[in-house]
């Protein structure tokens, strides 16, 4: 039933692209089955390579084809060949980056003999297709999800209501915080073709910083809530990331399921910290560059990944040469510095062109003397207040959880907060039909 619902869910967007899901499912199911019985290491490797080729091939064709072709054209034309590429204008299958990574994790874990194969094909198909997290994660590992499908699940009353609460929070984050309070300002600033005043550039960047958190965390929270209403438990994807103390802490708190995927299937196989300091830095940088490219087929995303790789390397150097103890006093300052550095990377993530990103950076560091003031006072106050509250909430919640906090407060208080969120969601009437991460 859940499997059928999941296919219908995906088909409501674009029925022919369900075929891709089926192919991905068939290939990884077959590869997984063979890997579970095959003893010949060469043949096992061949099955793994087949799975990788199909999944990464889909990604390369649907997501990176035009990007690769553009770059190929640019390189060829620098040698004067006058080659003209023909963009194919292919639709990007929604959630392809998420479900291909999920299915690849199954095959890799099977190859490494870390997990048992799925008991039935339908269990595996549901693992690939489970609708709450199909299009934008969390990217769930097989051992955490498939085993939950082995027996019929029914949410308890408390699970169901908590799921509804999480769904409300997710919608509140997306509809009210991201789309109503912040998206307009971010769109206006990043869509402007003018050289902006420093305040406008910072406020636009802060607005996007808040928007992308609320948008993506909102989707993840909805997914976790809906799954819980069905009695299925999905892992957390965000743990108050804007109060991170440094960048390795950030990646344990932001898009946790992707960063742990990259750690387990890329960073560690690249050598991790087992082969000396230089190899460690290379592994960090390569992982983050690929992480950037995972988000989108553009050089701006690669720069975003490169900046995060640089931050991680600088953090390692600081720990080695300038170690200091984190206290309650310097912790908040460190979190603020981390958050500020993260904001700089968001400029490259959001800008469609390097020119826009560079103009924004110049404005943010007051290298534009006569920047345009396009934001009004109320917008500046609104965005600053929302982002300041977001930062403080993350700071005070960084060592606790929503569940723990809700246990401490009275049912009435929780009910009133819940009602306010519901009311604001309904009167906002978001017209945003998409989440930002759907395009990745």
């Amino acid at each position, binding site marked *: 039933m859940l499997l059928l619902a999941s296919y219908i869910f995906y088909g*409501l967007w674009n029925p022919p692209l369900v075929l891709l899901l089926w192919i991905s499912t068939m290939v990884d199911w077959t590869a997984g089955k063979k890997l579970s019985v095959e003893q010949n290491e060469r043949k096992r490797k061949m099955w793994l390579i087949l799975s990788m080729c199909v999944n990464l091939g889909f990604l390369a064709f649907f997501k990176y084809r035009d990007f690769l072709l553009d770059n190929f054209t640019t390189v060829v034309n620098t040698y004067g060949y006058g080659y003209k590429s023909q963009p194919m204008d292919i639709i990007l299958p929604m959630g392809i980056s998420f479900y291909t990574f999920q299915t690849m994790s199954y095959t890799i874990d099977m190859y490494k003999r870390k997990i048992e194969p799925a008991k039935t094909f339908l269990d595996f198909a549901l693992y690939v297709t489970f609708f709450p997290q199909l299009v934008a994660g969390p990217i769930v590992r097989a051992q955490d999800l498939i085993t939950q499908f082995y027996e019929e699940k029914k949410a308890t009353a408390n699970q169901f*209501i908590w799921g509804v*609460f999480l769904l409300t929070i997710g919608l509140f984050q997306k509809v009210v915080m991201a789309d109503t309070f912040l998206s307009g300002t971010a769109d206006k600033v990043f869509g402007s073709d003018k050289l902006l005043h420093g305040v406008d550039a910072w406020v636009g960047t802060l607005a996007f910083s808040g928007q992308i958190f609320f948008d993506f965390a909102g989707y993840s929270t909805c997914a976790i809530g809906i799954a819980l209403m069905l009695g299925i438990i999905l892992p957390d994807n965000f743990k108050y990331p804007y109060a991170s103390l440094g960048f390795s802490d950030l990646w344990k708190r932001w898009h946790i399921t992707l960063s742990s995927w990259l750690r387990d299937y890329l960073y560690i196989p690249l050598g991790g910290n087992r082969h000396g300091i230089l190899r460690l830095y290379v592994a960090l940088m390569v992982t983050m560059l690929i992480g950037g490219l995972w988000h989108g087929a553009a050089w701006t995303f690669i720069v975003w990944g490169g900046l995060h790789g640089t931050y991680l390397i600088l953090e390692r150097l600081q720990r080695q040469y300038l170690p200091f103890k984190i206290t309650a006093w310097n912790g908040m300052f460190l979190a603020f510095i981390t958050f500020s550095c993260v904001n700089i990377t968001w400029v490259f993530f959001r800008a469609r062109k390097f020119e826009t990103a560079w103009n924004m950076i110049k404005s943010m560091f007051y290298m534009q003397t006569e920047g345009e003031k396009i934001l009004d006072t109320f917008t500046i106050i609104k965005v600053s207040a929302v982002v300041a509250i977001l930062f403080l909430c993350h700071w005070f919640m960084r060592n606790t959880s929503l569940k723990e906090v*809700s*246990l401490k407060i009275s049912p009435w208080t929780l*009910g009133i907060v*819940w*009602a306010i969120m519901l009311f604001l969601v309904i009167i906002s009437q978001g017209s945003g039909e998409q989440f930002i991460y759907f395009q990745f």
Partner: protein
Amino acid sequence: MKLKQSFIVAIVLALLSIVAWEFYWRSQGHLPNIDDNKNLWANQRAKLKDIKENTVVFIGSSRILYDIQLDIWKKETQTDPVMIAAQGASPIPIFKDIVENTDFKGTLIAGITPPLLFSTTYPEAEFMSRPQFLVDYYKNRTYAQIINHKLSIPLQKNLAFIRDGDEAWDSDVDLKTLLKQIHFGERGEPVFPPFYNFEDITLDRHMKMPERMVTDTAYASTVKKVWKAILGGDMPPPDKESTINAFVELSKKFINKGGNLILVRCPSSGLFKDIESKAFSREENWDVLVEKSGAKAYNYQDYEQFQNLFLPEWSHLATKDAQFFTRELIKIMQSEGALTNSKTN
């Protein structure tokens, strides 16, 4: 944790708040209405997949949308009108879509609003990108979007605070628009006056000017203020030549297919009339277009009975006047044999 208790508190308080919100907006004169959005447009465009013998298609901008009353049109001509005019839009992208992507070769009535048609063919300009967005949306809309729209209709029909429009003029009571209306200080770009909703549209895009626009002059003035702000802003000089050429090229293709093309210049008054007569003179624009396109053409300025019609906000007719305009226009067209597939009662 007593979750059930919290859940009940949340549901009860949220419901009470929503009921209060609904009553507040009704007390402010807002009534439930359907929004003229991309889905409504796409549903009408979909009718061109299955063209009937007596189908008449309307393209253009909001003027023809408000000024042609479809119920009267249907009754008086016995034709099946399909309204795919788009608000704030040049007719070119939709005309191009009809010519290139459909087999339609019946009567096509194009509303000509000079500032929208003769300004530009630049694809990124609002007047061009807005209708192109509709054309693209029709081609690419998903089943989820179709279902979402169907589910939203009962809500739109019954709740005054629900808005489902795509444009600034569709949004007046949602939280984002309410926040946008808060201003203090001098910083930033000039403040645009609030654009209140003045649509009363049916699912088949029969648009009427709400009665409030006629009876409440203060409300009508809020729309006039918006027009003043728009018309007072910087506008690039009109690109008469390329716009006329683009339209004429499409006209020829359509007429060569066997289509019956009729151009209609709907009334305007006040500031619009002044600007249109100065910046888009009839001789240099409308007359040239009519001559080059080879289409039948009707300009309200040529008919005595259309000289004193009431346009509450200078650009669109009040409903009674729109009904009169529609009836009279049909009579004129029929007397000249312009409506090739109409039947008279």
